[in-house]
């Protein structure tokens, strides 16, 4: 059976079946959020890294992710106006644009991507994992919503290891702070077996996600692990981890990927299926969302497929073996948070990128450095240098922003990428001349 590609109007983005399915899931979720009040459901806002979705589900809370809302605003070209709104209200031009997009969106009525108002959260689940900005972001939201704010700290994995002190601290917070407060807000008693059940489902979906990510080892890669990867991680990084929907989605996606492997096909991009795979790349850093399609096209036009990326690890490093574990429910939630990409030390990040370059037989590294994200960006120039040194492969440094359109200079990015591809070519011909000599 040939994989199914849905034909679209020429200007519409072309999507494969899994992407459409994912879109549907997200749309349903946004409707659930918009209908939450009417349906008597309570809402918890939280973050992607350190997302405790299974736990929130134990309290019948609906998960709202301001980061994802900001991404949606970016994709819909609304974030620019939101950011300006926040800056007019006194937020600095220097800080994370996710925060400002969120705050601007709030000021303008909090209309979600479905065109309907998103509900005010009943609780802010401040899972402080891998990014300092989170702490201040939810302090800012708390000022606005005046609702219960639950703080949960993930220590930083600075020495490349998880210590018993870290786990004990996190489990204690869960037991003595997070769970009792969630019980209070939701009025639902905590049931450990319910959590175990959700964690079991998470692990199933995680197995399939890893299979999909690792499929990029094939030549040609059947997936794009950055631009396409963003679709793939959506459900599991968001409100679906631990649900049957997620299990089903990843099963479906896995089949789709298998079909592409069998047919020797590359990924589907918004501008059509990938042609010949000329370059295999690893990408570090988040993408730009305001010009997402244009950005992807710059790779597509050159025959460049991303075979691994660090961004697809911000919500969990499953390909490094981590699985949510029903046998150790709270410990495994703690380990999950500890292991996310932005909570890993710089040397660990370097190791991961070097591993990816080897494992996925990449031609080089692209760093997309985000102007307003210190968590990712501080240290990336050293990361680049180290990865180049250790792999002998060339790297390129691009600077954009996540959702601030003012910082996406298409001409600059394109120029950089074009010269970069030439550099890879030169390296290749140098290598083949060397081999022939």
């Amino acid at each position, binding site marked *: 059976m040939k994989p199914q590609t849905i034909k679209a109007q020429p200007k519409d983005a072309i999507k494969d079946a899994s992407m459409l399915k994912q879109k549907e899931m997200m749309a349903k979720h946004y409707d659930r959020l918009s209908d939450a009040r009417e349906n008597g459901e309570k809402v918890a806002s939280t973050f992607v890294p350190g997302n405790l979705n299974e736990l929130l589900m134990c309290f019948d809370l609906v998960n709202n992710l301001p980061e994802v809302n900001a991404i949606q605003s970016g994709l819909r070209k609304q974030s620019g106006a939101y950011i300006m709104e926040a800056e007019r209200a006194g937020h*600095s031009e220097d800080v994370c644009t996710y925060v400002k997009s969120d705050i601007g969106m709030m000021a303008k009525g909090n209309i979600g991507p479905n065109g309907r108002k998103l509900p005010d959260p009943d609780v802010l689940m401040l899972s402080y994992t891998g990014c300092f900005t989170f702490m201040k972001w939810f302090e800012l939201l708390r000022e606005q919503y005046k609702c219960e704010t639950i703080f949960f700290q993930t*220590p930083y994995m600075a020495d490349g290891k998880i210590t018993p002190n870290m786990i004990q601290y996190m489990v204690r917070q869960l037991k003595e702070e997070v769970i009792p407060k969630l019980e209070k807000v939701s009025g639902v008693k905590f049931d450990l077996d319910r959590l175990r059940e959700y964690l079991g489902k998470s692990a199933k979906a995680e197995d399939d996600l890893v299979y999909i990510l690792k499929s990029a080892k094939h030549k040609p890669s059947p997936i794009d692990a950055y631009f396409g990867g963003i679709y793939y991680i959506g459900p599991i990084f968001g409100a679906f981890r631990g649900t049957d929907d997620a299990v089903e989605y990843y099963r479906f996606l896995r089949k789709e990927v298998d079909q592409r492997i069998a047919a020797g096909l590359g990924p589907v991009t918004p501008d059509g299926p990938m042609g010949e795979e000329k370059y295999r790349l690893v990408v570090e850093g988040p993408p730009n969302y305001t010009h997402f399609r244009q950005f992807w096209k710059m790779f597509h036009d050159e025959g460049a497929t991303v075979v691994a990326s660090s961004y697809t690890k911000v919500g969990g490093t499953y390909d490094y073996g981590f699985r949510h574990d029903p046998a150790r429910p709270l410990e495994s939630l703690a380990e999950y948070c500890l292991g996310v990409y932005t909570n890993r030390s710089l040397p660990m990040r370097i190791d991961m990128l070097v591993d990816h370059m080897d494992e996925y037989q990449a031609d080089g590294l692209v760093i997309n450095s985000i102007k307003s994200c210190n968590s990712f960006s501080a240290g990336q120039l050293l990361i680049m240098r180290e990865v180049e040194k250790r792999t002998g492969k060339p790297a390129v440094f691009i600077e954009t922003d996540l959702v601030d359109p003012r910082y996406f200079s298409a001409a600059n990015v394109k120029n950089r990428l074009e010269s970069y591809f030439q550099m890879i070519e030169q390296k290749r011909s140098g290598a083949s001349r060397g081999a022939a000599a």
Partner: protein
Amino acid sequence: MTTPSTSEIVARCKALYEDLNFTTAREWKAAEAGRKVIGFMPIYIPREIIHAAGMLPLGILGGGDNLEVIHGDAYYQSYICRIPRSTIELGISGRLDFVDGMLFPSICDVIRNLSGMWKTLFPEVYSKYFDVPQTYRDEIGGTFYIGEMTAFMHDLEELSGRKITADDLRHSIDVYNKNRRLVRDLYALRAQKPWQAPASEAYLVIRAGMVLPVEEHSELLEHYIAAAGAEDRPIKDNCRVIVTGMFCEQPPLNLIKSLELSGCYVVDDDFMLVSRWLIGDVPLEGDPIHNLAQAFLHHSESTAAKYEPDREEKGQFLVRAVRRTGAEGVIFASPSFCDPALLDRPMQQNVLAAADIPYIAFKYAENSGQMQPIREQAGTFVDSIKLWSAA
């Protein structure tokens, strides 16, 4: 021995401040075989533990406006603050080659990531990201913090080859209690009579504590407080202001002077919070590590780099500082691209607005040269406060 004059003390402190080779710390180390120096960055480190290990805690606050950054810029994009690049410069240029360990406290993601960069760039030097709890319950955050401090203590024991006893720690706590009392005395003097102990002097005197052994610094503080209190200095028609946001990347000294020249008496600030992070004396009886943890959890300064668990309390520390010092306004001076200072600022400003306290805000970099705009802005602020209070 005669007590030195304020100008002599300030001149000495200025020389220490300008010495980017850290000569005094080098000399301290060279004076006895086996001595070790542990560098630390803002915002807070329990220096007592380093002291108890017989080592010198050395505050590294970037390169200021005197350091030519040659290598550092290659490590950072233009949209990241200055302090990490000048600190890298200090490292790469060999100015920290005598330092046996570097500590990167939990303050923001830039210093957090710098901890890993240091490990990569200087693998032979002990370096540690010093994590602290942002939750303040004894059995949760407290237990975690005790665990972190104990691990750190063991690291230092390994580095020095000797055990740190409870009595060593008690002695060090005692020594630092004294130092903190003196720092607070200096702040109290400045709040009462800012013309006697101007901010530009007080800054240098406190800053000397980043490089001097604590005992020596306490002596210096005593001398300065005595000399400054006794001197007859003219009172100016200045406005009393608090500056906030300068807890990490340091302002150029000229910036503080410019504020004074524009008519401000800086009566409180958040420079070098490490020297007064813990409020009040840390008890000497009982388990010293437990006592340090208790002080951290329940008796420590508030700042933008911390989480405030109580919504009602958010920013109140600033209002209280205004009331305590009789300040007439607040100046938010933040390093460009500084997440903690800039993300927190709108919340603090809302609190001030609700309390009817005037404020202004500007940004700086440690190497800012142009002071004219800041002078003008501060001057206008002072004028408006005066007009407002006359009305």
